[in-house]
């Protein structure tokens, strides 16, 4: 009797500790799940308002965002250069510098500066396969903002004392600790040929997971080194990295590399990948098996 009562209380407490909510922010569903005794109920609110603030700054769909203002400026500059001629080679300087020095009167927020520098670093680390600069001279850092924001959101949760959580935004994931009932967090890899299905189950063990692919909107990532390359051989690549930011920035670049992407990930210490080609054949790095249990 006593133990039964104890069990009931215990399970009630377990249930009460679990908070999960999905909201559409940054143009995608974001799901935050926290399983913690000490976590405050406001913790989810805090994380969602962080994502909202990121959206305000980085959304290329919002005219009022900081990135839109930068792009407006870049567009003016680019059309001016078409008339007057470019004062120097556009690629002569690292991109972040190019933007920063484009107008001394433009004040960049520290977050914008951080993201642009990360983008520049990623471009160099991937031999130019990651590039936020578009052909019209504007920039779109969306390929890195998502992973960056999830990673920061995870830091917020840790700071608030949460130790068991899962944040998923648009298919990129950061987990920490354990799922409900002490289970390992499990992540399905979406079937690129039927998005209602999964084709693999992985256990990230606290690492970050990001998938880059072409099945949602046709070829939404192009090869920056060869614009005619339609990247049709590989339809999806899932990358596991030290955290979701690392996984995200390398997943984008690895997908742009096509068939070579998985070899590129194999060459990176602490990274693993599972890529799926148009025939439905998956290629995985040698240590990917460590995440299958």
């Amino acid at each position: 009797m006593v133990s039964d009562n104890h069990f009931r209380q215990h399970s009630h407490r377990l249930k009460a500790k679990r908070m999960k909510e999905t909201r559409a922010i940054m143009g995608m569903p974001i799901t935050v799940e926290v399983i913690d005794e000490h976590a405050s109920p406001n913790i989810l609110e805090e994380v969602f308002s962080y994502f909202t603030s990121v959206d305000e700054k980085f959304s290329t769909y919002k005219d009022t965002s900081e990135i839109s203002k930068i792009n407006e400026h870049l567009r003016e500059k680019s059309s001016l250069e078409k008339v007057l001629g470019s004062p120097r080679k556009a690629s002569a300087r690292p991109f972040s510098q190019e933007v920063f020095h484009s107008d001394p009167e433009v004040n960049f927020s520290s977050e914008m500066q951080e993201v642009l520098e990360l983008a520049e670093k990623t471009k160099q680390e991937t031999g130019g396969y990651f590039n936020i600069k578009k052909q019209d001279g504007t920039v779109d850092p969306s390929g890195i903002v998502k992973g960056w924001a999830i990673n920061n959101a995870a830091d917020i949760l840790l700071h608030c004392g949460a130790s068991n959580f899962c944040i998923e935004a648009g298919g990129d994931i950061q987990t920490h600790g354990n799922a409900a009932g002490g289970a390992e967090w499990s992540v399905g890899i979406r079937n690129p040929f039927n998005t209602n299905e999964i084709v693999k189950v992985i256990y990230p063990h606290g690492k970050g997971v990001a998938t880059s692919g072409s099945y949602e909107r046709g070829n939404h990532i192009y090869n920056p080194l060869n614009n005619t390359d339609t990247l049709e051989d590989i339809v999806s690549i899932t990358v596991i990295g030290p955290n979701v930011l690392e996984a995200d920035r390398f997943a984008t670049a690895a997908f742009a590399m096509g068939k070579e992407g998985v070899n590129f990930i194999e060459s990176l210490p602490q990274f693993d990948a599972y890529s799926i080609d148009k025939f439905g054949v998956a290629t995985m790095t040698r240590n990917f098996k460590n995440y299958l249990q």
Partner: protein
Amino acid sequence: MNNGSKKLLIGGVIVVLLGGYALWASTRSTTPAPAGTTAATTADQTGGQTSVPSGTTNPNTIGQDGGVGDSSTPGDSTPSTQYKDGTYTGIVGSAAPYGQVQVKVTISGGKMTAISLLKKPEGPGETNEVTARAFPILIQEAISVQNESVHTVSGATQDSDGFRQSLSSALAQAQS
């Protein structure tokens, strides 16, 4: 499954794996004749890839050549051959003069779920790189639909279709 058809399956896989190799080797007018692989499987020469041709040896492979865009539903295809579950190691095939090749296949739920190379041909000196390309050390498998429940799903971004976003967001909430 009788021994004959098992041999046929494993032999077929080796022929397939050797397909890409043969493509390369033929430029040196040395076509390897894998031992014991007289099964009349057509190797789909996918440019040096060790992929399994759709619908040949693996009924679960998703998407025929060029069929990425079509809306055929994978997973509901009925295997034309019922394999017995287990792990099968193929015979050592010859890839003379560059060595030997041997594969291991895993059958699960009557479907082939993994192929791995136990032995791969190795060439001397400059040919190493070519051989490595034709036979990547990375592991390959045909994808197969999993019915396990998971906490979350990783997939490519859905960032344009407002209706769909709203719907998935609603569904995610409905699940919690």
